[in-house]
C-alpha cells in the first residue's frame, strides 16, 4: 500500500487523567471538532435523504407554522397585531429562535441511546453526540435566519448597527440549548421518562416565552406579586427574544434589561444560561464513563 500522509494520532492515552476509560471530553480538540462536524453532517444527509424537496422542508416548515399562527392571531383572534409594530416579523423571528432551542433539546434527549452502536464499539469523547445535535440545528437556525432577514427587509425595516447584537444572542441561545441538551441526553440513559416529560416542559416554555405576544402586553398582569414581564424575561429564552426584538425590529422597544428593571437584573437570565450549561456539562462528564454500559 502506498504511503499516503502521516499516520494519525487517533488517541493519546489519557494518562494525565489518571482514569483509564471513556470520558466526555479528551482525545484532542481537533478530533473533537471533526467528530462533531461529521456526526452533524451525517444527520443532515440522513434527514433529507429521500425527500423530494430535501432541505427546503427545514425552511418551509417553520414558515408554514408561522403562517398558521399569524392567521389565527391577527385575523381570527385579533390579538396583538394592531398594537404591536412589526408583529409578523416578531412572530417569525421568535418562532425561529425558539425552534432552535426546541429542536436541539428534544433531539438531544434520545441521541445517546440512538447512537448505541457507536458508544459500545469505539472510544471517542462522548460529548460529541449531544453537541453534534446542537451543531446540526445551528445550521438550520442560520438558514432560517436568512429567511427572517429577507422578511424583515421586505417589511421596510432598515439595516442598522444593532443587528450585530444578534450573534451574541445566538451564542447565548446555543449555550443554553446545548447545556440542556447535554443534561437531557445523559439523564435519558438512566430515566426513559425524560422524553415525555421534556415534551410537556418544552410546550410550557413555548407558551411561557414571549413568542405569540410581547412582554409589554403582559406588563400589568401579576403572579404572586411579580410582574409577568419580569417572569418572562427571567426566562433566558424570553430575555433573548425580547432583546432580539429591540435589536432587529424596533429600537424603541424595551430591552431585556429595561423589562427586568435594571442592568444588574440582567445577570439573572445570564446566570441561568451559564448555570444550565455548567450543570449539563458537569452531569454529562460525571455520567460519561458509564454511558456505554447503561444504555
Amino acid at each position: 500500500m502506498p504511503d499516503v500522509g502521516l499516520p494519525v494520532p487517533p488517541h493519546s492515552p489519557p494518562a494525565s487523567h489518571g482514569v483509564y476509560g471513556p470520558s466526555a471530553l479528551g482525545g484532542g480538540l481537533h478530533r473533537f471538532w471533526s467528530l462533531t462536524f461529521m456526526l452533524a453532517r451525517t444527520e443532515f444527509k440522513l434527514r433529507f435523504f429521500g425527500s423530494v424537496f430535501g432541505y427546503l422542508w427545514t425552511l418551509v416548515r417553520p414558515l408554514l407554522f408561522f403562517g398558521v399562527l399569524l392567521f389565527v392571531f391577527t385575523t381570527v383572534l385579533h390579538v396583538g397585531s394592531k398594537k404591536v409594530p412589526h408583529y409578523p416579523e416578531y412572530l417569525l423571528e421568535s418562532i425561529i429562535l425558539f425552534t432552535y432551542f426546541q429542536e436541539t433539546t428534544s433531539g438531544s434527549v434520545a441521541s445517546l441511546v440512538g447512537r448505541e452502536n457507536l458508544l459500545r464499539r469505539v472510544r471517542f469523547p462522548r460529548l460529541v453526540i449531544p453537541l453534534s445535535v446542537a451543531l446540526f440545528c445551528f445550521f438550520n437556525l442560520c438558514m432560517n435566519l436568512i429567511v427572517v432577514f429577507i422578511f424583515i427587509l421586505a417589511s421596510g425595516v432598515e439595516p442598522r448597527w444593532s443587528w450585530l447584537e444578534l450573534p451574541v444572542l445566538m451564542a447565548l441561545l446555543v449555550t443554553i440549548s446545548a447545556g440542556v441538551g447535554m443534561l437531557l441526553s445523559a439523564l435519558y440513559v438512566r430515566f426513559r421518562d425524560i422524553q415525555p416529560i421534556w415534551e410537556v416542559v418544552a410546550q410550557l416554555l413555548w407558551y411561557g416565552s414571549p413568542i405569540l405576544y410581547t412582554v409589554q402586553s403582559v406588563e400589568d398582569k401579576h403572579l404572586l406579586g411579580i410582574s409577568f414581564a419580569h417572569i418572562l424575561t427571567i426566562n433566558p429564552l424570553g430575555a433573548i427574544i425580547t432583546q432580539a426584538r429591540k435589536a432587529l425590529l424596533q429600537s424603541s422597544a424595551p430591552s431585556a434589561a429595561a423589562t427586568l428593571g435594571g442592568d444588574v437584573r440582567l445577570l439573572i437570565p445570564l446566570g441561568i444560561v451559564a448555570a444550565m450549561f455548567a450543570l449539563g456539562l458537569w452531569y454529562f462528564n460525571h455520567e460519561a464513563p458509564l454511558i456505554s454500559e447503561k444504555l
Partner: protein
Amino acid sequence: MSIQDVSKTFRLPHQQYSTLKERALHPLRRTTYDELHAVNNVTLEIADGEFFGIVGRNGSGKSTLLKCIAGIYGVDSGRISVAGRLSPFIELGVGFNPDLNARDNVIINAIMLGLTRKQALRRFDDVVAFAELEEFMDLRLKNYSSGMLVRLAFATSIQVEAEVLLIDEVLAVGDAAFQQKCFEEFFRLKREGRTIVFVSHDMYSVERFCDRAMLMDHGDVVQIGDPRTIGRAYHELNFGQLAHDAPAESHSDSGTTIADAWFENERGERVSSVSQEDGLRMCFEVRFAEELDEPVFAVTLRTDLGHTIIVARSDQHGRSSGSFKAGESVVAKFAIPNWLTPSRYLLTPSLARAGTGESALALVEDMASVVVHGSVSSGGILELPVDVKLERA
C-alpha cells in the same frame, strides 16, 4: 501494554426500574442486583510488536477485557497502561449507516476511527481498491451483501495507522480470496511491528498469527502460553467437560450388558481428549449374562453432529471371536490411526449375535466421547495422509 489486576463487574438489576413512575410507585423496594464478574484480576503484559491472541468460550470475558483495553468500558479496579497510539475500534464497520452510500460511509467510518476528513478523502481510493468494490461506491449500504459490507469495513479499518490494534472476531467472514488478503494484511502489520491484540473463537487463525495467546474462562485467566498449548487447552475446555456426561445405563434385553466404554491413547491410558499426533483406541467392556458363541463386538464412531465416521466389527475378515460363558467380562479394543479432524467424537458400542449382526444384544448410544485436538484442520472430516505429486503432462 501492561494490564495489572484488572477487574470489571457488571451489575445486572433483577428488575429494571428505568422510569421515574416505577421508582415512585415502589420507593421501598430496593433494586437487587446480580453481579456479573466479567473480568477478574487479569494481569497481563504484552510486548511491543507482539501479536497476542485471547481465546475463550462465549461469556468468558474476553470481549469485555478488550473493551476495557480500548477504553470503551471503565475498569472497576486495576490499571491499564498502553504505550503508543491505540486504535479506537474493536469491531468492523463502526458508524456504518445503511441509508447512506458506500462513499459516505467510508469517510464516516474513517473519521470515527481517528482520521481527519482530509486524510480520509486522501485514502479513499486505497480503501476502495483494497475492498475491490469500485463499481459499487454509489450504492446504498442497505443494498450491500454481508460479504461486501465486511470487505468495505475491513478495508477502511486497516487504514488506521495505529501502533496498537485491538481486533474482535473479524476473520470469520468474506470469501476465501478476501480472507487470504486479510491474512496477508495481518502479516504485513505484524512485520511492521504493530502490537495486535486479537480476540477469536477460531483457534486456527490464533495459532497461525499469534506469538502468544491467553485462554479465559468465566472472567479468569486460565493459561497464558504459546498458541498451540492454548489451542489444546481451549479444545479441552470446550469439549472436555462434556466427555464425562455420557449415559451410563446399558440398554439390553438379554441381561448381557455393556458395563463401560472409553477411549484410550496409544499408551493405553484412558483419555477424554487426545492430540492428533496420538493414536486412538475405542474400547468397551461387556458382561455376559448367558452363554454365547461367536458374538459380534462392534463400535460406531460418530461426530458431534451424528455423522458416522467408522463402523468397526469384530467379525471383519471372517475372524472368530470365540465362546463366552455367563458371568464373564470381556474388554474389546479397536485401535485406529488418528486421522480425525479436531472436534468431539462419540462412541456407540454394541454387541450382537453371530450372523447378521442385526439383532443387538446390547447397545448404548454415544456412551463415551473424546475430543481430538490439534492444528491440522483442512475442513474435511478426516485428515488422511496425502501424498501430493505434480507432473507436467
